[in-house]
C-alpha cells in the first residue's frame, strides 16, 4: 500500500513537472528577440462565436507588422489563449501573459467581466490592457494610462439607438427588455431617458436574468402591453428564447435588438428560422465600411468586399496602435510606450490607414495619425475610444440588410 501510494505521488509529481516545465522548453523562443503580446479571446463560452475571427485578425496583423520589419527591429510574438468568456479565467491568463511570457501588452478581452478582472492586474504590473468591451466602468477611475478601450462606450450605444428611433423609426410607444449585464444597463438607461425626453412612451422596462429555460413571463409582460416596438438588449442565447416566445404568442410589436443577438455571425437566423427573424432591426458598433482602413483590413483577411466584421478590426487596431506606440517611444516597455498611444492614434500628423506605412513613418521620426480598421483610433485621455460608429440592419428573408451607419 505504502509503495503504491508513493508510486501514485511520484507519477503525479512527474505529470505536474512536465506540464509546468513545458514553457521552459520554449523559453528562449519566448524571451529572445521577439516582443511578446498576450491575446485573450473568447473561443468558448457565451461569446465563443467571436474568438476565432479575432484570433485570425491578430495573427495576420502581427504577420504584416513582422513582414514590415517588426517593431524596434524585433518581431511581435503572439500568445493567443481562450478566455472562456470568464472573468476568473481572463485574470489567470493575464497573470500568465505578464509573468510567464513577460508581455507588455494584453489585447483582445471581448467582454466586460474579462476586462474588469484584468484591469487591476494590468495597472499593478504597469502593462497596457486593450479591451473590446463596452461597459463604462472599464475606463472609469484612475487607470494610470494603462487601460484602453477599442469599442464604443455603452452609453454611446444608447445615444445612437435612441436618436435613430426618434428621428427615423417613428415608434410612439416602446417596451424595453434588457439582460442583467454590465454593458446592457447603461444602454437601457440612456435609451429610456432620451425616449422620454422626446415625448415617447416607455410602456415597460424589464431586466431579465441570463440562462433561464424560458422567458415566457417576461415576454408576455412587455409585449402584452402592445407597444409599437420592443427593444431587446442582451446576448444571443436569451434572445433566441425570447423570439421563440414572441412568435408563439403571436405578438405584433416590432422588435429591435443588438447585432450580437439578432445576427451573431448568422447564428440567430440558423437558430430560429427566417420566419421568426423577419423584420427584426438590429444595431451594433461597427467599422465604417467605406473607410479605406476597413477595406485594407478585408484584403488582409482575404475576405469578400461585402463582409462585415464587428470585432476582428478592433484586434487589428489594438496590435497596430501597440506597435506604433512602442516604435515611437523607442521602447517595448509599457511604462514608456503607453504615453505615446494618443500621439499615434489622434495625431497630429498625416492620416495613414496602413500599419506598414505608418510604422515606416514613425521609424523615420515623423508624426502619424493612424486610422484603424475598426475606427479612426482616436482616444480620450482616460482611454475611451471616439470615432467608432454604429450600424443598423433589418432582417429580410433571413438576411441582414444594411440600413445606415451613424456616430454618437
Amino acid at each position, binding site marked *: 500500500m505504502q509503495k503504491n501510494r508513493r508510486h501514485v505521488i511520484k507519477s503525479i509529481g512527474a505529470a505536474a513537472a512536465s506540464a509546468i516545465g513545458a514553457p521552459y522548453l520554449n523559453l528562449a523562443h519566448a524571451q529572445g528577440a521577439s516582443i511578446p503580446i498576450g491575446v485573450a479571446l473568447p473561443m468558448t463560452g457565451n461569446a465563443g462565436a467571436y474568438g476565432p475571427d479575432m484570433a485570425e485578425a491578430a495573427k495576420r496583423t502581427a504577420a504584416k507588422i513582422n513582414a514590415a520589419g517588426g517593431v524596434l527591429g524585433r518581431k511581435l510574438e503572439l500568445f493567443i489563449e*481562450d478566455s472562456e468568456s470568464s*472573468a476568473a479565467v481572463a485574470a489567470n491568463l493575464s497573470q500568465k501573459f505578464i509573468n510567464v511570457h513577460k508581455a507588455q501588452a494584453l489585447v483582445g478581452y471581448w467582454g466586460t467581466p474579462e476586462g474588469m478582472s484584468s484591469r487591476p492586474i494590468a495597472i499593478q504590473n504597469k502593462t497596457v490592457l486593450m479591451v473590446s468591451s463596452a461597459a463604462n466602468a472599464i475606463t472609469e477611475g484612475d487607470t494610470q494610462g494603462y487601460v484602453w478601450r477599442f469599442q464604443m462606450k455603452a452609453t454611446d450605444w444608447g445615444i445612437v439607438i435612441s436618436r435613430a428611433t426618434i428621428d427615423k423609426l417613428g415608434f410612439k410607444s416602446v417596451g424595453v427588455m434588457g439582460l442583467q449585464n454590465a454593458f446592457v444597463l447603461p444602454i437601457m438607461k440612456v435609451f429610456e431617458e432620451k425616449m422620454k425626453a422626446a415625448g415617447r412612451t416607455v410602456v415597460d422596462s424589464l431586466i431579465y436574468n441570463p440562462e433561464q429555460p424560458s422567458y415566457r413571463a417576461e415576454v408576455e409582460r412587455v409585449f402584452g402591453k402592445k407597444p409599437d416596438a420592443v427593444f431587446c438588449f442582451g446576448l444571443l442565447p436569451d434572445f433566441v428564447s425570447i423570439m421563440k416566445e414572441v412568435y408563439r404568442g403571436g405578438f405584433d410589436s416590432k422588435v429591435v435588438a443588438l447585432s450580437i443577438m439578432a445576427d451573431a455571425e448568422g447564428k440567430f437566423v440558423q437558430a430560429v428560422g427566417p420566419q421568426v427573424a423577419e423584420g427584426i432591426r438590429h444595431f451594433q458598433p461597427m467599422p465604417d465600411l467605406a473607410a479605406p482602413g476597413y477595406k485594407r483590413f478585408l484584403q488582409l483577411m482575404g475576405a469578400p468586399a461585402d463582409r462585415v466584421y464587428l470585432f476582428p478590426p478592433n484586434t487589428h487596431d489594438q496590435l497596430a496602435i501597440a506597435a506604433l506606440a512602442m516604435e515611437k517611444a523607442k521602447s517595448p516597455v509599457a511604462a514608456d510606450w503607453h504615453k505615446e498611444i494618443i500621439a499615434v492614434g489622434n495625431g497630429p500628423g498625416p492620416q495613414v490607414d496602413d500599419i506598414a506605412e505608418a510604422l515606416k513613418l514613425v521609424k523615420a521620426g515623423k508624426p502619424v495619425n493612424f486610422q484603424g480598421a475598426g475606427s479612426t483610433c482616436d482616444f480620450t485621455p482616460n482611454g475611451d475610444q471616439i470615432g467608432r460608429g454604429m450600424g443598423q440592419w433589418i432582417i429580410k428573408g433571413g438576411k441582414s440588410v444594411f440600413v445606415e451607419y451613424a456616430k454618437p
Partner: protein
Amino acid sequence: MISFLILMSIVVCFSAILALALNFQWGQGGMVNFGLTGFYALGAYAAALLMLKAGANTFFAALGAMAVVGVVCGLVALITLRVTEEDYFAIVTLGVGEMLRLLALNEDWLTKGALGLAGIPRPFGDSIAPDQYQYFLLGLSLALLFGTYAFLRLVTRSPFGRLVRAVREDDVVAATLGKNVLWARVRIFAIGGAIIGLAGSMHSIYYQYIDPTQFTNIVIAYAFMAVIAGGRGAHLGTILGAGVVMVLLEGSRFLKDAIPRLDSDQLSAIRIIIIGVGLIALLIWKPKGFFQEYRLKA
C-alpha cells in the same frame, strides 16, 4: 515563470480549502452540497462588502464571511430537517445556491449586480512592496490551508468526527444510539459553510474584483473532481486532488507553447478533453482516489 507558479499556487490553496469544505460536508458527512457555488459566492461577496462598505480589515471581513456562510448553511440544514435522503438534500442545496447567485446578480444596490465589485483591498497591501506581495499572499494562503487541514484532521479524529461518519453511514443507527442526528447535520453543514466562507474571502482578496460570472457551476464540478480524485473523506487526498485538477486546468494551457503547431482554438477544444480523459484514467487506475479516509484502528 516563478511568479506565475506562485500565483497559481495561491489559487490551488483556496480551491483546496473549498474542496476540503465539500469533503467534510459530503465526503465525511454525506450531505451533498450542489449549492457550493452559491455559498462560495456568498463568502466572496460578504468579505468584499464588509471591506468595501463597512470598512472592516481583511481579518474581520474573512471572519464575518465565515460566520455569514456558516449561519446560512446551518439554517439550510435546519430547515431541511425532514430531507434526510442524499438526493433530495442535493436538490435543496442546488436551489439555495442558485438563489444566492441570482441575489448577487440582481441586488444592484448591494452587490452592484452584473458589474461586480472592484477595488477589493488586500491585507497589508500598502505596507508590503508590490514585488514581494505575492510571496506574502502565498505564505498566508499556505498557512490558511494548513490551518484548515489541521482543524479538519482534529475534528475527524474527535468523537464528533465519528458521529459525522456515523450519520453518513446510517442516521437511523446513530439516532438509535442516542445521537441527535439533526443537530449533528446542522453542525456538519455549518462548519463546512464557514470553511467555504474562508475560501470565498480568499477568492475576493486574490482577484480584487468579483462578479457573478466567476461563480458558475463549473466551480462545483472542480470541487467534486478534487474530492473524488483525492479519495472521498480523505483530507490530504482532497488537497492533492485540488492540486491535480489545477495542474490539469492551467498546465494544459502550456501545451501550445511546447507544441507550437497546436492552434489556440484547437487547444481550447482539446483542453477540456484532456482534463476529462485524465480524470477518467485516474479513476480507472485508482478508483478510490489517492488516499482513503481516516479510520479508527482497533
